């Protein structure tokens, strides 16, 4: 069991090499002549005004929130799906009700207008 994960761990340790080392090499191969104008923030040639931290609209939060709740609930269903062969009818319907609650939730959010972008 842990041996299976060893590969993933080694992958995490080594995977940065493949994009990272070429970038380092390119860093040495490429010229480096910075100047004030070149290092300016690129906003189509117009000088940047104010803070980068612009105000975002709350819809971004709404979608992230909906995503979080759905993600959590769907992840709950994976063990249920694996155990499907041994499940009694009751178990199948318990899972189905779970999904239907999710569906009701989606419809509720839809009616509330939380799924509208504009």
């Amino acid at each position, binding site marked *: 069991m842990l041996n299976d994960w060893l590969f993933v761990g080694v992958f995490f340790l080594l995977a940065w090499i493949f994009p990272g080392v070429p970038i380092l090499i390119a860093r040495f191969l490429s010229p480096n002549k910075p100047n004030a104008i070149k290092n300016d923030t690129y906003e189509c040639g117009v000088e940047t005004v104010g803070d980068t*931290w612009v105000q975002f609209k709350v819809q971004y939060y709404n979608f992230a929130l*909906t995503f979080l709740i759905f993600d959590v609930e769907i992840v709950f269903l994976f063990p249920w799906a694996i155990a499907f062969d041994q499940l009694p009818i*009751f178990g199948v319907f318990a899972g189905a009700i779970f999904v239907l609650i999710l569906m009701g939730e989606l419809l509720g959010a839809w009616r509330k207008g939380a799924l509208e972008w504009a």
Partner: protein
Amino acid sequence: MTVMQILFLLIGLVTLAASVMVVSTRNMVRAALYLIVTLFGVAVLYVLLNAGFFAVVQVVIYIGAISILFIFAVMLTRDVTGLQAAAFNRTWLLAAFLALVLFGGLFLALQGWSGFETVPPAFTDDTPTIRDLGLALVSPDGYVIPFEVASVLLVAAMIGAIYVAWGRK
């Protein structure tokens, strides 16, 4: 010192250091990024505990969703007091003292406990797999009530959160 122990120490160190950074970094987005490092460390700890399912769930839910929610919230609530304002309140010394006392107390209490140095029992055929977890979650003499209640809780949380965050100003 086995390889596993060294691995644990390294991961634990990174996790703890990142969690200290979470509470001490002034820049909130950076704090959220440090939180991601901490959460990742915890995921690795789950792997070491032979709970691979929880490791991926940790990455999917915490790193994939909760941390993104945090970053979104930080960007939505631009701190009008500015970054110059104090990050800590006046009682931070007391808070640090309390945290240290709690840690010391926990440490002492745990040390007196007999199960403190337990080593993990080997896996047997009885050791539950993800399949058993799935069965238990929807069986009437298992956890079907918490399972459905968790679903309802999440529905309530979502509807409530949308209502609160989105209500007319």
